[in-house]
């Protein structure tokens, strides 16, 4: 590892957000866009605002960094009323990530990320170091991507830089508005997993807006389901929202197949991983193949010197070269251990190796998930889950 994380796994660097009877009425509209919203986002948690289009999610989010001024009500960050702070100063301490990353096309990746640290007057050396650390964190090699322009990046890479930019000055609070709305499903799932990985490391207070209930259930420590006018339909853990929807609106919104959605609640980290033979980039192919054959494996998972997976190859492909070659990490689809079993099944179905490579913190290789490991896990939790749901539904109020 060339960088050290800023925070240990158990540090909470986020602060609490509190909305107190917040109202937003746009001029010339009869109905308030947000009508008396009160809620608390605990420090260090990721809360997802979800609801149908036009229900006031974006409005609620933008009131937290004062891009929109509430008509009435109070918002407190870490106990402090935000209306008492200068808007620009406040925003420099709140990360803001929007759809597509919305990078400035005339600035390089590094310059985009540097914006807030520069506004805060950090010195040059510290900023340069921070940029590299962040690129590393979001899985982009600093040397390769630092000086590129946004148009030289794929949609997913742009969104990663957008996340890095939001994290740049290490703000305690991060706001995200449909950050993964503009990318294809496979990339979206990877970005979601990466965000979970980053959050596991940093423990920021994150508020994210989405209209995708599956994304909300997957990412949220808690999920806020909003109804027209920014009224709360339910604010609870994903488990409880699935098991005990508060009303018909939530029931409809969560939709059918909630048994299948339970797959969204189990993480890859909960299942037993396989450990097929691995090889390191640069080692003699013959030795690696011998190891694989001894173990009865037909393929090799290739890791780089930092134990990050770079490729998955059949033995005959490896045999064509004397040494094990590097691969394009961008092209290898891997699963974060925090990914859901739902995502895992998706990836496995698309894989010609009948499995999915699982990574932990900072892309560290953990093992391989296959269908058998998923069904095994589902079978063991099936009974327990059934009992749990019965018990949860018994509880009158969450």
């Amino acid at each position, binding site marked *: 590892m060339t960088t050290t994380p800023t925070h240990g796994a158990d540090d909470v660097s986020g602060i609490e957000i509190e909305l107190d009877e917040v109202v937003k009425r746009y001029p010339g509209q009869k109905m308030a866009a947000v009508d008396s919203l009160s809620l608390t986002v605990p420090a260090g948690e990721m809360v997802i605002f979800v609801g149908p289009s036009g229900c006031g999610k974006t409005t609620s989010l933008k009131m937290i960094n004062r891009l929109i001024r509430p008509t009435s009500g109070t918002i407190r960050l870490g106990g402090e009323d935000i209306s008492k702070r200068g808007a620009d100063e406040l925003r420099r301490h709140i990360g803001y990530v929007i759809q597509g990353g*919305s990078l400035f096309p005339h600035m390089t990746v590094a310059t985009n990320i540097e914006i807030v640290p520069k506004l805060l007057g950090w010195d040059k050396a510290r900023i340069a170091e921070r940029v590299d650390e962040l690129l590393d964190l979001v899985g982009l090699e600093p040397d390769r991507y630092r000086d590129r322009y946004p148009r030289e990046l794929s949609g997913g890479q742009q969104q990663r830089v957008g996340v890095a930019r939001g994290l740049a000055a290490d703000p305690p609070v991060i706001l995200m508005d449909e950050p993964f709305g503009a990318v294809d499903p496979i990339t979206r799932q990877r970005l979601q997993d990466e965000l979970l990985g980053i959050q596991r490391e940093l423990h920021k207070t994150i508020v994210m807006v989405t209209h995708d209930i599956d994304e909300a259930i997957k990412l949220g420590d808690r999920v806020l389901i909003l109804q027209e006018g920014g009224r709360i339909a339910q604010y609870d853990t994903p488990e409880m929202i699935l098991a005990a929807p508060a009303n018909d609106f939530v029931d409809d919104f969560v939709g059918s197949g909630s048994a299948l959605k339970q797959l969204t609640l189990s993480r890859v980290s909960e299942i037993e991983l396989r450990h097929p033979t691995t090889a390191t980039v640069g080692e003699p192919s013959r030795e690696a193949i011998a190891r694989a054959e001894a173990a009865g494996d037909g393929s090799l998972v290739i890791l780089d010197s930092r134990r990050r997976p770079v490729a998955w190859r059949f033995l005959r492909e490896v045999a064509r070269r004397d040494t094990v070659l590097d691969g394009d990490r961008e092209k290898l689809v891997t699963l974060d251990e925090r990914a859901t079993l739902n995502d895992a099944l998706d990836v496995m179905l698309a894989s010609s190796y009948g499995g999915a490579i699982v990574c932990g913190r900072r892309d560290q290789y953990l093992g391989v998930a296959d269908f058998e490991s998923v069904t095994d896990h589902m079978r063991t939790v099936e009974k327990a889950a059934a009992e749990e749901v019965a018990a949860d539904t018994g509880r009158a109020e969450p």
Partner: protein
Amino acid sequence: MWDFIVERHQQILYDGFQHAYLVVLAVAAATVIAILLAMLVTKVPRLDSVANMLSAIGLTIPGFALVGLLMPATGIGSTTAFICVCFYATLPILRNAVVGLQGVEPVLIESARGMGMGEAAVMARVRLPLAWPVILAGIRVSLQMSMGIAAIAAYVLGPGLGSYIFSGLAQIGGKNALNYALVGTLGVVVLALLLDLLLVLVGRLTTSKGIRV
């Protein structure tokens, strides 16, 4: 005609330089004025139609008419020439600058504000660099146009190649009439091409690689 040029080459070069100098100076001043005005229009969108109307009407005022209007105030000489060229030069740049500055995607502006950039920073670091290629296109049009306007300004004894054209016109039928008119006209055309080339180069150097076409 060759003899005509060889005989007077020093004078022609000097006048050519004066012509270019007047135009470059006037266009530079016009660029600053136009960008400042466009920033104002961007900040107060209601001024938008006023700016559009001004640049539309301004361009229809004949050059001679403006020279005539200015003469009582600023007299005969290079000041009048400069003001006259600068006036016309401002119009196309203003139009492009307004379109360019306002054309920046709202989501980028919001993103900038959301990160805590103040209004001035948003203008200097986001709007202006993104609008720059459009503004440059305006400056190129303006420069070409100004070459011709500067020639007309020679009527009030402004510096440059315009005086050759007027001399030629004044002695029609005379020995060197055609030479004068031709040298004046060709000189203006050649200078215009050279300056345009220079501007393209400056444009390449000042436009971010991330938005260059």
